[in-house]
């Protein structure tokens, strides 16, 4: 797995999808946050995070995701997580992220729920 995170934004009509690839740590989390903020500035309020190619999230990465969630709540937007590994999904659940962001097995599931 790449130690460097690359983030690609796929902007669609009503929502956008952020595809991550690599380790979501402090550096990768910053990039993720930057891309998220760009989408928010562009008016996207529904953003799907596809973590299919990210298998590890460290504590800083989680804290950044919490930041993102908090900002989304403040902006009255919605966040959707999909393609999480079991461990990440469980970690998100333990740390309370899933209280405010829905988790879906596949991206299509998230899209259909939007």
């Amino acid at each position: 797995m790449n130690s460097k995170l690359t983030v690609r934004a796929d902007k669609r009509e009503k929502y956008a999808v952020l595809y991550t690839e690599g380790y979501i740590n402090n550096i990768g989390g910053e990039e993720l946050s930057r891309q998220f903020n760009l989408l928010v500035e562009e008016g996207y309020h529904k953003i799907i995070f596809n973590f299919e190619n990210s298998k590890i999230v460290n504590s800083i990465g989680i804290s950044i995701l919490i930041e993102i969630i908090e900002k989304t709540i403040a902006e009255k937007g919605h966040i959707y997580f999909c393609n999480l590994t079991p461990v990440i999904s469980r970690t998100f659940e333990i740390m309370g992220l899933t209280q405010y962001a829905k988790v879906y097995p596949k991206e299509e599931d998230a899209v259909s729920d939007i």
Partner: protein
Amino acid sequence: MNWEKNISRIALSVSFLCIVFYFFLSYFLPYSLEKTSGILRIVSAVLFASIIIYISPKPLFRFKQFENELTFFSIFLGAFFLLSILYSEKSLGAIASLKGRRLGFLAVDISYMILTAVLIYLFIVYFFAKFNLFQKITFYFIIFLFIVSIEMPIVAWLLYLLCIIIFAKIPWLIAVSHSYRKILFAFLLAFWVFISVFHLPMLESFEPFPEAPRLLIGTPTQLRLNSIVLIITAVFTVSLFSSLIETSRTLRSKNVLIYILTSFIPIAAILILFVMSYINISVFFKSYILEDKFIDKIKRYNAQFLRQPGFINIVKYSQSNESLKERLALEKYGDLLRNELGEKPFFKLQYKKNTSTYEVTSSGFPQSLNPEDQLPQWYYTADISQGESGIKEILNKIFSKKIQNADRMFIRAGNEVFFYTISSYEDRDAMIQLALFMPMSTAVADKLYNDFGIQSEERDESAYLDKDPLAASFCIREISSGEPTGSLRFAFFESINQIIFGKLAGSDTLTHFVGGLRDLTFSVLLLFVFIIGILGFIALKINRTIRLALQTIILGMRRIGEGNLDYKIELKSRDEYYWLATSINDMTSDIKSYMEDRVEKEKLKGEVHTAYNIQRSILPEYDPDQYGLEIMSYIKPAEEVGGDFYDYVFQDENRIGLVIGDVSGHGIPAGLLMAMAKSCIHNQAQHSTDVINVMNAMNKMVFDTVQRRLFMTFLYAIIDRSSKKLVYSNAGHHFPYLLRKNGDLISLEYPSYPLGVRKDGNYKKQSVDLKKGDIIIFYSDGIIEQTNRNMDLFGFTGFEDTIKSQVGSSAKEMLRNILLKLDDFAEDTPRVDDVTLIVMKINK
């Protein structure tokens, strides 16, 4: 193979092929080949050398080392010439014949000396230290046979060896810089190209005159000084390349100018050698021409001598087309004179060895004059007209063996010149050799002058060099009476300018050839002057470059020594000094990085140590064993200190609290947050042990205290043995497990944000009933996220399976088995996060 070695191979090939090709063409190829173009010769020689070096299929000839190639060439050339001698190659045959008369050292080809000297030089440089006994013996054997074969005088050996060694040292003397040595070599290479393409074929033209060495006035060893210079330059070139390969391993500490000045001495020697070479060559060819003219004179005299019957034969004889025959005609002429004129005109010198007396008569003619003797060799002249001193001079030359058997000499008595031949060593008591006397009447002389004009110059005595040893005088006598009526002298040179500039009358082939040699000499001289100029420029530049570079480096070293590790030594040049400065800069940079790194590590080490102490002080010293519980705990930081912590809160006789948390981050901030958490927990517990109150107090403390993106997972649980309940709340920490006695595994779930995310945590209280034999497992994410070599996670599944397999175990056994299982899974994969594990078993 690096490029330097390739270049050295090429250079060696070029240098040595010049030698090889020179001798190869000189001694093996027929003379007709000299009309072949020089380029073709060079190409053939290159192919010849290339085949030897590269194409030979025998591994013996494929050397890997540069030195070994020199060795190969040495042995090869030594064997080459040895075989030439042993097989009596054509041109060597003449040398062999001369050897029998103890003139061998004079007739030895100078090229052989040079070759031998080169071999010895190569031996000194390359053989002595590096090669085994067999190789050395082989080399010595070749040299030995070589010396024996050619009877080379040891003095000549030493002279030429000395010369070679001096020249061989030049590159080390004048070019301490590898870069400049390369420049110098480029000039030398240009020199070789120049010589090879334009002049080497001309030097080969010595060969059209195979008799030339024996006609030289002076020593034949001076004949090929041009060749010496060329070969020495070849050695110089090879040596230079050797030094290029060496590179400047050590910088010279002496003043460069000393080396430069020293280097000019051998260069001056080169110039002297060239001048000498040119003069000797000029002398040789001038004498050659003059001898031709002399014979012509005889022929012309014969026109007057026709009255003498014997001269008719001379004319016929000397009109032969073969030059050798023409010269032999001179001998015959002597015989005819003797026969025709009797003993009257001849001169006789008789020396009694046992009595040390001599007698001069004019009536005896040596009966032992050997008409089979070869050409006259005009090595010496003496004037016996001065009486005893002149005669002693002759005798001294005879006894010092400067005049040897079969030599000819002119003996001058006033205006009379006698041409002598030393006949035999067997008759030492009567070593009397009277050769020729050339009678000529005034009328004949006038006739020659009037009819042929050839004596107009000779008659002008002011045009001659009176004391020139190369001049000869003739007495003109009336044939009938024998009375002298006049004198005739001829000199080899009219003036010193003629010697130096080689100006010759006429424009025949020889003159043209000598002119070519003159051009060669001057062009080479000019080239050397050019090289000297370049060397001078290089010398100044080297001196300035070295001085400035050293000053810059010394200054830089001082700055660096004073502690300025940011200082960079800047040099514009790209030579060894540049690389030295670069190395120093790199070294300084490395030292700086090392010191910074060391400081950073020390700082980090101190920080880690401090945090470790903090963490250790926070963690409980022992696990409680009351409350009807068996409690076992384990914590192992991933990097000495991590973010995990736990603690026990003793509340009353029935209730014990447990806190477990994980601070995101490591080091002192995490440690301080832990310390603050412990303080906060215990402070709060004094006021209220309610789980929610503790959670809210902790959340407020973390929210108010920690920086952005730093949070703490936190779980607070109270076990009440009186009510058999576990009351807990969780802030993002991994859910504890409850393993029932019957094997049911329950995850005590309560999802929530970690502490410090929101000001109002809004945490809820949870509770679960406990039974005897139940086991509660608290842990940190370090267990779940442990990976193995395949980067597989231990995960929740692995952890849960392990716990399930421990039904009925004690807390101690479960803790140990979980850790063993975790170690087995991880193998030698390092821990990436702290591992905390607390196992509580309800015993009562």
